[in-house]
């Protein structure tokens, strides 16, 4: 499927998404994409309730790829690797917005922006994504200026 706007956000559907992004983008549907979330009953039931009336699907990466095309959908991926897998699987998003990526315990990370942590492996994958022609930006809220993501990686030496 093709999605208008792909956002990486650990907290999935929260205030920034429901109060700012969905109205601004005019999307009609939300797709939450992550294998673990899709397998978790609690989150599968709660996320649509948080979406304020927007039809919401909670899908694994595979199911997201198999779903029919919807240009008016916003895809919210939990982690960067969900997006990497989506693009490997053939998804061609108009833009990938790296919104909120909190550090996860384990690998050493660098804070690239105030809300985005990146490990060395992830930095490589982001670069591959950009090299494949996927527009990669970071923009917390619609009123913020979108910033190109790869130059930010360069600046942090990743």
């Amino acid at each position, binding site marked *: 499927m093709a999605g208008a706007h792909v956002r990486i956000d650990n907290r999935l559907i929260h205030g920034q998404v429901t109060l700012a992004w969905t109205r601004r983008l005019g999307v009609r549907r939300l797709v939450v994409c992550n294998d673990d979330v899709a397998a978790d009953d609690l989150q599968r039931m709660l*996320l649509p309730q948080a979406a*304020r009336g927007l039809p919401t699907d909670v899908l694994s990466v595979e199911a997201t790829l198999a779903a029919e095309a919807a240009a008016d959908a916003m895809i919210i991926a939990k982690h960067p690797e969900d997006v990497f897998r989506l693009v490997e699987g053939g998804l061609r998003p108009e833009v990938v917005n790296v919104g909120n990526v909190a550090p996860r315990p384990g690998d050493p990370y660098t804070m690239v922006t105030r809300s985005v942590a990146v490990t060395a492996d992830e930095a490589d994958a982001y670069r591959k994504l950009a090299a494949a022609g996927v527009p990669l930006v970071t923009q917390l809220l619609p009123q913020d200026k979108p910033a190109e993501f790869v130059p930010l990686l360069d600046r942090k030496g990743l």
Partner: protein
Amino acid sequence: MLVALALTLWAIYCTYDGLGPFLIYAQRPLIAGSVAGLIVGHPLLGLLIGATLELAALGVYTYGGATIPDYQTGAIVGTALAAGAAGAPAAQAAIGIGVGLPAAILLSALDPVGKMVTTALVHRADGYAADGNARGLAMIHWVSLVPWVAVRAVPTFLAALAASGGLVKDITASIPAGFVQGMTLAGSLLPAVGFALLLGMMELSRYWYLLLIGFVGFAYLHLPVLGIALIGVAVAMLFVTLKRDEPVLAVPEAAAEAESTVDPRLTKQDLRRVYRRYFWSSQISWNYERMQALGFAYSMEPVLRRLYPEKADYVAGLQRHLQFFNTSVLVGGPLILGSSVALEEAGTPKSAASTKVALMGPMAGIGDTVVFALYNSIVFTMGASWALQGNWLGPAFAAVMVLVPYALVRRWQFGFAYREGKRLAGHLAAGALARVAQGATVLGFVVLGGFIPSIVKVVTTLTYRQTTTVQGQPVTQSVAIQNQLDELLPFLLPVLVTAGVYLLTVKARLRPVWVIGIVVVAGVVLGWLGWFAPSAPAKS
């Protein structure tokens, strides 16, 4: 000097209130400005300036760490400078708004500075957690309040000090009356910005018709805002009970059948301590990297100490709850805290961590919507509308409507989630949360429909000359355009202004700061020219 110190202390409390207990939402300009007015000995100025900034900032809250204009400092500083200005109260208030608004916008640049310092501090907290040093952890948590407070208290102190000199009086004495007139008009137009921002967050295309109920209630039936709010409650109840369009999802069997077979190891005292810690300090160590994590770990610490006598387990527990966490602290946070306590007590720490992660996003979505966009906006708009009339009931009403309901709702969430433990998932699945959000949305639309004409105040003072023939004699009379507009549709101009601002923010996608700038400039120019005014001049 004494006044400057008192204002600084008040600024410190306001900042703390908005990070910890949310007793009276003192960081909102209505409350911050009103009390600042009392401190400087000009209560009316505080009410007028606080209320105007409040209405310009409706629905503007910091969600998920986004930086917003510092309206708290703007209201306090604006009030302090207005008190030192020359002229009548209306002119002083216009000057206060003229200073407070740009101050709020400029000072937002300092907000990230405070949050970056706390980011560095949270790494120190990691070190203390690894040592199992609860005192160190608590120390870092409370010390994190200092940078948050400093970036607001220091500018407040400096501005208040400057305001106490005679310089302000000299400067303001030379401000032309036309400018004051224009600024007064700009102040009465600013609420349109708040309403437009709020509408931009709500499902206008789905519920626009509900605005008509409130509009008719005010414009034709002349109901007071409280009356319109009561109609709104009734309509919201109708929607929630009659229009259940959310499919009721099947409750997972595991969640429904899970019985609480845990022997309680926590004392009432432990639970009280956890809740008290969260209540008084949930967000004081908020930082970009982990957000509310340290506050959550600090709150959980008494429970972890009781449950894990082995040091290694205790340390693992602290580290578990120091992982990234962020949610809505009034609706959502206490529920998650109660569930974490229950699941830790049940001996399922893994599930405590995963439930926390599962709940924080959706609860932030629901909680931020209900708290920021709906409940607070309604309560503070009503409070501000009374404050604009110089009525003290305004800020007092808002403070009480924050203090009591939020205290009860938070206590209930914590107790409910703790008692229900593993069964909590089943309750949440039944769709109650979505219905609460829908009901609140419906209420919000009805009330907004009445607020727009009652609070955005603008009339035109333009007239044209018309020559008619009366009894064979040509008579020239001046006709007020406003009277003709009123015959067409009452409150046409406020509606048009709000619609225009809505188009600028939502359709033309201008940043709110620019929209505020446009409204202020337009207000000053049109008011100075004398073409428009907040209300019709008294008939002579």
